[in-house]
């Protein structure tokens, strides 16, 4: 018996739990004296609460029935499936809106005159004032017909 206690103490002092477990198991399985010193199933039952001794299962059901009822109601309505149905409807509606808008945009693009207005260079050219020699000068803007070239002429006011 003393040998077993010494071995026990040595094993308990081991820092590595797997090694300690392996040694304890090995010793317990081989040592008849240690096996005789183990609690029997009947003795253990005397210390534990058995399922038969905890009382009535109806009482346990009453405790959880309110929450279980909510759970049941929740699962019966199948919110996930209902959500999925709405998701399909929303996706279909979005696709329809995109298709109609796209069709309308295509039609608009194909119409003549769509896009930036092709205004003439003279219309797009603007000079507020031109100073020549520190004084405002006379300015002339000239665009030859049939070309995009714009000439700007500035002359000093005399």
């Amino acid at each position, binding site marked *: 018996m003393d040998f077993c206690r010494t071995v026990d103490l040595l094993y308990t002092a081991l820092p590595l739990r*797997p090694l300690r*477990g*392996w040694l*304890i*198991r090995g010793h*317990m399985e081989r040592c008849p004296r*240690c096996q005789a*010193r*183990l*609690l029997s*199933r009947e*003795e*253990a*039952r*005397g*210390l*534990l*609460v*058995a*399922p*038969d*001794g*905890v*009382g009535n*299962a*109806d009482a*346990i*059901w009453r*405790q*959880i*029935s309110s*929450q*279980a*009822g909510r*759970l*049941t109601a929740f*699962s*019966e309505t199948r919110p996930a499936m209902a959500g999925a149905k709405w998701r399909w409807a929303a996706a279909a509606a979005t696709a329809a809106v995109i298709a109609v808008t796209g069709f309308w945009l295509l039609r608009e693009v194909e119409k003549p005159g769509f896009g930036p207005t092709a205004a003439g260079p003279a219309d797009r050219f603007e000079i507020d004032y031109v100073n020549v020699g520190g004084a405002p000068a006379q300015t002339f803007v000239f665009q030859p017909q049939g070309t995009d070239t714009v000439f700007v002429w500035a002359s000093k006011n005399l």
Partner: protein
Amino acid sequence: MENGKKPSVDEREIIEGCLRGSPVSNRAMVEAFGNLVMSVALNVVGNRQDAEDVCQETFLQVFRRLDRYDPARSFKTWLLTIAYRRSLDMLRKKRRFSEFSSKARHEPAVAERGANPHPAGPEPLPSALLKTLSPRERTALCLWANEGYTARDISEVLACSASTARVYLFNARRKIKTLLENDHGLLQNG
């Protein structure tokens, strides 16, 4: 009302009913396994109020997650795994609360919230000797003694190897036996 002793209860039917969300099946499941879960919770957490909370949380989790249950495995073991984990959560919660209340000892109103409002009644409680065991050892001992589980079955519940489960069981049986022998010796000497 251990499940194994009730062959009339069709486990499969109950599970399928619960999966459909049938309240009748939910009730049947609690009636079939409620005492089993309650006894494991009571033996692991050590007091009735916490065990009732564990039992409630276990069944609510089972109803929510039943679709994850693998029919190839034992339903009872799956259920007890959840009950064991809920019990561990409860013990952790209690430990955190006791740490907090020991820090806030000057606030008795807060500290008293953790006290059991129901004093020890006629309901059976596990022996105080079990408090000397770790939660894993208590669970291993409970499953072995009450349910006849082998080390392999216990290892599934504790999520460890069968060898480790065997060590937990050895330690539990040896510690309690030693305590019982010491008590017996004290009684004889005294």
